């Protein structure tokens, strides 16, 4: 291009752009600076920002394809190291940094991402203590989500078989490292809930670097754990490793082995507890028997059982007394009846017709009927007269009316 002739703005910008893009040094450059004017485009996913230091600034853009790969969220004021190429945005005549990759400066990218996700999920209530489910005392089925080839699952199985072989392990083999692992583990958690085939779930993975454990910071996994009806124990990494999985789980164990120990009771402790209960029933029944014996002793000590003879004598005497009074009552009754009968007999005797006859009267009968009036008789009737000492038959010869 001949720069001594007059050129258009477009031609100028196109020329400068070709110069910038032709410079090897500007093709892959690392720039440290602080993010400002951060404006992500929600629709396209492109990220626009300005990188600046104390004195200067440069426009920067990160296209959606690269932006989707960053693990942490960009924020204004954040110190970063951006890697990319320099080119010119011809429309504005402004040169900018086209970012391929971006890392927080100073603190690791993963650490930043971790803190950011933790803060966001915390705001959403995923770590609320009141949402934590309690771990069942005697889990019949223990769900284990882990790598089928890892040492973690071996540790878990060994410890559960030693501590609580009454349970059944339901194992879900998953990868525990690499892109998309978080989603796969989240899926396993959902499977356990869908199949309702565990009373408690252990998510186990051995130790590793922050990058190795990164998938346990998956938001998808965090939400699957949060939504799980089955209590979840997280045993990821070593004592010093913390993942989002640890925070959202119902119980965090420092290691897979510790998770197994928290999941099930120890059979030896159970046996001691049974022995304790057994001892208690023995003690209770012995003291019951002792109490009954004492009651019996007290009863024996009382009058009746000590000298039963006395009691019987007392009974005997009472019966005799009763019989005596019964006798006298009966006699009194008998005597009063007898006296009354005697009086009645005397009265009867006085009224007897024989007694009257003995005073000179006689009874006249006609045909066995007593004659009490002359009107019953006719002349020549044969009548019978009864005297106190015999009978007479007589013939009526004359009837006279009432004596006037």
């Amino acid at each position, binding site marked *: 291009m001949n720069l001594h002739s007059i050129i258009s703005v477009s031609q100028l910008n196109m020329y400068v752009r070709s110069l910038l893009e032709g410079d090897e040094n500007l093709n892959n450059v690392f720039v440290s600076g602080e993010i400002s004017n951060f404006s992500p485009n929600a629709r396209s996913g492109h990220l626009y920002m300005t990188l600046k230091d104390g004195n200067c600034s440069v426009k920067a853009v990160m296209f959606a394809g690269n932006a989707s790969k960053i693990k942490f969220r960009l924020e204004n004021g954040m110190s970063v190291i951006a890697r990319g190429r320099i080119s010119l945005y011809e429309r504005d005549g402004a040169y900018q940094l086209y970012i391929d990759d971006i890392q927080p400066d100073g603190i690791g990218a993963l650490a930043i991402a971790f803190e950011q996700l933790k803060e966001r999920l915390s705001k959403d209530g995923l770590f609320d203590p009141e949402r934590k489910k309690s771990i069942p005392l*005697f889990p019949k089925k223990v769900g284990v989500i882990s790598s089928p080839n890892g040492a973690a699952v071996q540790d878990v199985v060994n410890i559960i078989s030693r501590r*609580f*072989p*009454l*349970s059944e392990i339901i194992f*879900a083999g998953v990868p525990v490292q690499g892109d998309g692992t978080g989603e796969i583990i989240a899926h396993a958690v959902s*499977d356990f809930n869908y199949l309702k085939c565990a009373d408690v779930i252990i998510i186990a993975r051995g130790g590793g670097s922050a990058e190795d454990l990164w998938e346990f910071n998956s938001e998808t996994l965090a939400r699957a754990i949060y939504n799980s009806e089955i209590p979840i124990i997280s045993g990821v990494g070593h004592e010093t490793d913390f993942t989002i999985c640890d925070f959202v789980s119902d119980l965090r164990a420092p290691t897979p082995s510790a998770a197994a120990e928290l999941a099930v009771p120890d059979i030896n402790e159970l046996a001691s507890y049974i022995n304790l209960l*057994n001892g208690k029933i023995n003690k*209770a029944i012995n003291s019951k028997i002792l109490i009954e014996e004492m009651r019996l002793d007290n009863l024996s000590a009382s009058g009746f059982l000590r000298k039963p003879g006395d009691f019987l004598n007392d009974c005997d005497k009472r019966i005799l007394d009763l019989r005596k009074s019964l006798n006298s009552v009966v006699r009194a009754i008998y005597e009063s009846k007898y006296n009354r009968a005697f009086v009645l007999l005397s009265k009867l005797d006085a009224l007897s017709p024989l007694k009257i006859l003995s005073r000179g009267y006689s009874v006249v009968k006609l045909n066995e009927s007593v004659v009490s009036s002359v009107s019953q008789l006719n002349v020549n009737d044969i009548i019978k007269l009864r005297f106190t000492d015999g009978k007479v038959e007589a013939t009526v010869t004359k009837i006279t009316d009432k004596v006037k």
Partner: protein
Amino acid sequence: MKMNYEESVKRLEEIVSKLEEGNLSLEDSLKLYEEGALLSDKCRKMLSEAKLKITNINEVAENG
């Protein structure tokens, strides 16, 4: 009546508290004691004979 370990322990705990209250007749106490003694034997047996079972979740899913 077949009780699992947890139910057996719960019943045993019940028996202990009933016996410890001591309001029962001697006859009822002895009955409960007998049940409790059998239960604790059963629990001990369950603990000593237990063997861990491991199942893959795929088998659970296939068997419905």
